[in-house]
């Protein structure tokens, strides 16, 4: 370890007192790259190994041979169908409610009440701080009976749980665009408020909105604590309580499909978003290089 870092130090002394700056600069960068490589490697191993193991179990039959049996058996496993549709219904309702609640609020606060932004940020981060276990404890202690007997009470609470991600995502999307100019332009051209939001603001924050929705859906499909204690058999509760003795691979398969699916969708959304910005950046770079030449 020392033998690697010492040349770097020497190189840096050269950088200060030598007369040729480019050489030490590259040497120094190599030193940085060395520890970076180790960090990325260790992190990569820690984060990919469980995913690999999960995938391996997913595509294995009970004798340890490669097969699609677990994935194939999943839809017909007892109880899966009901759990899946309950989770999907809860997810879609949560996504819809949280979009309807938070999109207008975040736009309005950014346009008209910027002083409330810190407060909104504080309130929307509270669900991270207040654990779901305490939230469901309080909900079950205070909700009226008719609400407790409906699974959609969970949706209501999931909107709260997803607020930190949704609000942050929307807020980031809003700061990436010149909201005020867009709104003023649309309004002065005669657009109504609804038209302005629907046809000007929303298309401009589509990536943010999409990633907020996907995150929300992922959260609902993976939420275990509240569903378990509220006594509803959603997908995660079903996975946990599914009888391992019959086929443990099905449980792992269900978990892995959820993880990998969410990840792929999110990466696609983010890279779509980035490819847009990269295109404009490349344009800027071409202009610069032509100038230099």
């Amino acid at each position, binding site marked *: 370890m020392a033998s690697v870092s010492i040349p*770097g*130090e020497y190189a840096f002394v050269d*950088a*200060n007192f030598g007369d040729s700056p480019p050489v030490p600069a590259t040497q*120094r960068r190599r030193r940085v790259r060395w520890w*970076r490589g180790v960090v*990325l490697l260790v*992190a990569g191993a*820690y*984060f990919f*190994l*469980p*995913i*690999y*193991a*999960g995938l*391996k*179990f997913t595509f294995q039959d009970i004798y340890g041979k490669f097969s699609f049996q677990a994935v194939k058996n999943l839809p017909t496993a007892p109880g899966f169908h009901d759990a899946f549709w309950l989770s999907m219904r809860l997810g879609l309702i949560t996504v819809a409610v949280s979009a309807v*609640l*938070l999109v207008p*609020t975040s736009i*309005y606060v950014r346009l*008209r*009440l910027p002083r*409330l932004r810190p407060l*909104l940020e504080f*309130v929307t981060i509270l*669900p*991270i*701080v*207040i*654990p*779901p*276990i*305490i939230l*469901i*404890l*309080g*909900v079950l*202690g*205070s909700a009226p009976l008719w609400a407790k007997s409906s699974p959609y009470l969970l949706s209501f*609470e999931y909107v*709260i749980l997803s*607020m930190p*991600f949704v609000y942050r995502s929307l807020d980031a999307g809003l700061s990436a665009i010149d909201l005020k100019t867009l709104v003023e332009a649309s*309004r002065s051209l005669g657009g109504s408020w609804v038209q302005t939001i629907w046809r000007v603001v929303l298309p401009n924050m589509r990536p943010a909105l999409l990633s907020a929705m996907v*995150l929300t859906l992922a959260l609902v499909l*993976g939420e*275990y*604590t509240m569903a*378990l204690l509220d006594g509803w058999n959603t997908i*995660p509760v079903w*996975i946990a309580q599914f009888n391992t003795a019959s086929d443990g691979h099905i449980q*792992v398969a269900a*978990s892995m499909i959820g*993880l990998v699916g*969410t990840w792929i969708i*999110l*990466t696609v959304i*983010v890279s779509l978003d980035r490819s847009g910005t990269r295109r404009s950046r490349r344009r800027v770079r071409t202009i610069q290089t032509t100038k230099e030449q």
Partner: protein
Amino acid sequence: MNPLIFDGDMAVGGAGASASAPPTAGVVTRPSRRALRRVGFPILAMSPFVIFTFIGLGIPVLAVIDHAFRTEKGHLTTANLRVVSHGVYRLGFENSIKLSLIESILPGILGVFLAYAILTSSHGWLRPLVTTASGVLANFGGINLTFMFIASLGSTGVLTVWLKSVHLDPWNYGFNLYTFYGVAFVYMYFQIPLMVLVITPALGALRTSWREAAQNMGASNWQYWRHVGVPVLLPSILGAMLLLFGSAFAAYATAQSLTGGIIALSPIQIGNLMNGNVLSGQVNVGYAIGLGMLVVLTVTMVLYGLVRRRASKWLQ
């Protein structure tokens, strides 16, 4: 006079309403109507959010506090709190705090290095991949995580089998996935991504000009970090670690599904009390544990707020 009024309207941002008001009524009602718009519309616009969060977040929290001080029949009492501050429930708090401390310091440090490595990496594809991965993994506690780790480090897991084949079975060396330290190991899987998510903006705000200035004045790499980088980042890092503390302290699903609820952590104990796994007549003890957790988390968040204020001094 006319241009002045016009200016005033523009400043409020209301385009048409007061200008198109009938001229006779205008003089008298305009100020009050404007005042109403100025105050009334924001209240109206904010009310869905405020009402929703109050019902969904405020009332449950108040209910927890209220129930913690009541017997099952509704009389005021401090008996629940006394039960909670002794014996197994006290142990639960101690374990939870210990776990959360481990889970804030270790992933905190690792996360900073990881975030910096990714941020300064020359591979452009790495950042979006890691950003989305962090976003997914940071919220990825619970049941899925449990099964992934059982598949890799359980007694027949992939890694266990590999290590066994070179005669290094971790289970023979006292490793057990279903204990306190096993849980601690698994928690890192969402704690490190959370740290990366939270700290990356702060790291990105370190200006190259600071480093260049330090280098021009002859500072070594170490001196730059010792006197510029770390002092500037420290409030952000501490703040992020406080968030990690809260996240680990609150986590339930992972520990529950991994250990089946036998580990003595406060959230697990609440869950067991609510599931009726204990003697009846103790339901409100769960609320008292909840209150205790809320107190710990409030202290954490107050500290977080103080540190944040300090952090925003340098990093915008």
